[in-house]
């Protein structure tokens, strides 16, 4: 920070968390736009969405759901352990969270490449011959899970940055609001997946 600004020692954890919560609202509304588009097109093309959804592998979807739920738990546990002044355990738990996120992305990678190798991707020949509802379904599938995956990557970056702060003792047992905020963000990523999972994999 530059010197020509703040000589104030300004710390307001409550304010930082309020800001994060409002940001989470905006993220929900961002996805909300896509959810509206999904519901409108599902309403217009019920049969095609039903058929297309059967193409998706519920097993991988379920595994990824469990992975994200567990990772949300580990990041929450990391907060408790920093409160208990256990720096080492905090770092381990955050590391596990990142590891689980990476596993999620690897699964996602195999899922997407599998689809693409079957010729199902936007603009492909096979999809071009399918019904319009199926084109919409897979378009939404790639856009929504893709945008979600982007949030996973951002979340990993955020948690990784906070890990570094924990390591350098910039985040301590009495000053850990940024860890809480990164966890809040991670719960949001988890929450959105909780909605994406049934919409694409379970409702057939």
């Amino acid at each position, binding site marked *: 920070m530059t010197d020509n600004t703040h*000589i104030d020692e300004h710390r307001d954890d409550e304010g930082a968390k309020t800001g994060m919560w409002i*940001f989470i609202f*905006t993220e929900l509304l961002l996805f909300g736009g896509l959810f509206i588009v999904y519901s409108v097109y599902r309403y217009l093309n019920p049969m095609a969405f039903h058929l297309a959804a059967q193409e998706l592998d519920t097993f991988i979807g379920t595994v990824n759901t469990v992975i994200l739920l567990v990772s949300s738990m580990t990041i929450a546990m990391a907060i408790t352990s920093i409160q208990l002044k256990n720096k080492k355990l905090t770092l381990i738990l955050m590391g596990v969270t990142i590891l689980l996120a990476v596993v999620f992305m690897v699964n996602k990678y195999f899922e997407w490449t599998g689809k693409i190798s079957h010729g199902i991707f*936007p603009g492909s020949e096979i999809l071009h011959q399918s019904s319009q509802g199926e084109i919409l379904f897979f378009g939404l599938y790639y856009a929504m899970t893709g945008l979600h995956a982007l949030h996973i990557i951002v979340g990993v970056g955020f948690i990784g940055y906070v890990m570094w702060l924990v390591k350098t003792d910039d985040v301590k047992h009495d000053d850990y609001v940024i860890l809480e905020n990164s966890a809040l963000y991670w719960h949001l990523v988890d929450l959105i997946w909780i909605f994406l999972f049934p919409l694409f994999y379970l409702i057939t």
Partner: protein
Amino acid sequence: MIKTQTQDSTPSFLEYKGRFKGLMGWIFSTDHKRIGLLYLYSMLVFFSIAAILGLMMKLELMAPGKTIMGAQTYNSFFTLHGITMIFLIVVPGLPAVFGNFFLPIMIGAKDVAFPKLNLISWWIYIVGALIALSAQFFGDGPPDTGWTFYAPYSFRTGTNMLPAVTGAFVLGFSSIVTGINFIVTMHRMRAPGMNWMRLPLFPWALYGTSWIQVLATPIVGVTLLMVVLERTLQIGFFDPALGGDPILYQHLFWIYSHPAVYIMILPAMGVISEIIPTFARKTIFGYTAIVISTLAIAFVGYFVWGHHMFTSGMSGVALYTFSILTFLVAIPSAIKIFNWVATLHKASIDMQTPFLWALCFLFVFMIGGLSGMVLGALSANVHLHDTAFVVAHFHYIVFGGTGFAFFAALHYWYPKMFGRMYDKSWANIGLAIFFTGFNTLYLPMFYLGMIGMPRRYYDYVDKFHGPNIISSLGAMFMIVGLIIVITNLVRSARHGVIAEKDPWKGKTLEWTVASPPSLENFEEIPTVTDHPYNYD
């Protein structure tokens, strides 16, 4: 809440020497006042470009047929004019410039809640602006869709849409970050004794605005993202060939862009609510009513987007509902007008330049608002949709409302921001020319719309010629006024008479600190014991 180390804060924020010198001391400063001025200067540049584009369009319409440009150029001009004016100036305008500068001071704080985020939001703004404007200089020709990017044309046109849409998306981030910052600032950083009902009305307006920015902007963000994906990856969202629905695009676009109109006008109303009591030397009439109507506008404004689409194809029920809601949203605006006028009743009015701007605001805003009622009526709308009437209406609201309020705010807070006073007689002359030109420019367009001249055409039939000449002359007149106003302000920043602490006899907190304020605004955080406009 705030721990303060003692330090000598005599030098003003303009003179303060930090780690960086010169330009760097500005573009890396997290001081809310410097950031406010950064926004002001950037907007002045963009505004000049967009205003010149507007003038060129009016020159083209001086005579039927091709006058100075062809159809494609005209299309790209109104697109760039719209994108720049809406996304770069009017939407961020008042909150980013005057909100940044005065919100912390008016609530008795030393800065906003997240100063670094505040600086980042300016950087995002600049990056977004550069991306959006880069569409003009490379690729397959400037965008030609208009600022609304309507599907399916926005992904079928061969022109360079991608940077324009991406730029608008990035600018949305800047808007959201500023919104979050202001909300948290107002919740957490009010001075002792400054409870919500003692908050001046400009911060109140910013509070409503910030919530709209936070809750509505993501929708347009994701919609523009869908257009980007549709253009680059051929993912079908709105393309009928891929099963999509172009009308859905319009819904999503206006779900944001109608509330965005209230992002533009609420802070303008806030500014007027500050200026009127100061120059009337009187407490504002119906403080509570103004606060409630601010929140009511912010709330009801979400549910009227359909009135942009009366001719696009909606069910009868939807049409009636949107029409009724549109009439409803006029009520809180009218309440404010009545309150301002009631404040002036039996007041000892001091006729200064900012007050004159505020009066002109009332005049043009009422024309804009009432013509909006005409458009909100279903039968009239079918006749007037997509005509010059619509263009006249929203220029009366957006330029007449927000634009006049912006200049009113600039003249009102200028002595506080720069510590100098502008030349009052030149300011008044500029205003008089500007106001005359403004009305000469836009009033004929109401008439043109009623007799059927469509918007967004570079050409027209002969019977529209007369009013178009008047309108184009008005545009030139208005630009002259604008040049006088801006030149006077720019010149006075260096050569003006040194301003006092409280040149207008204002009662809100910003008039209790030095002009220009010191780095930390207050030597000591004030304790507030009374209502903001106490002249008794």
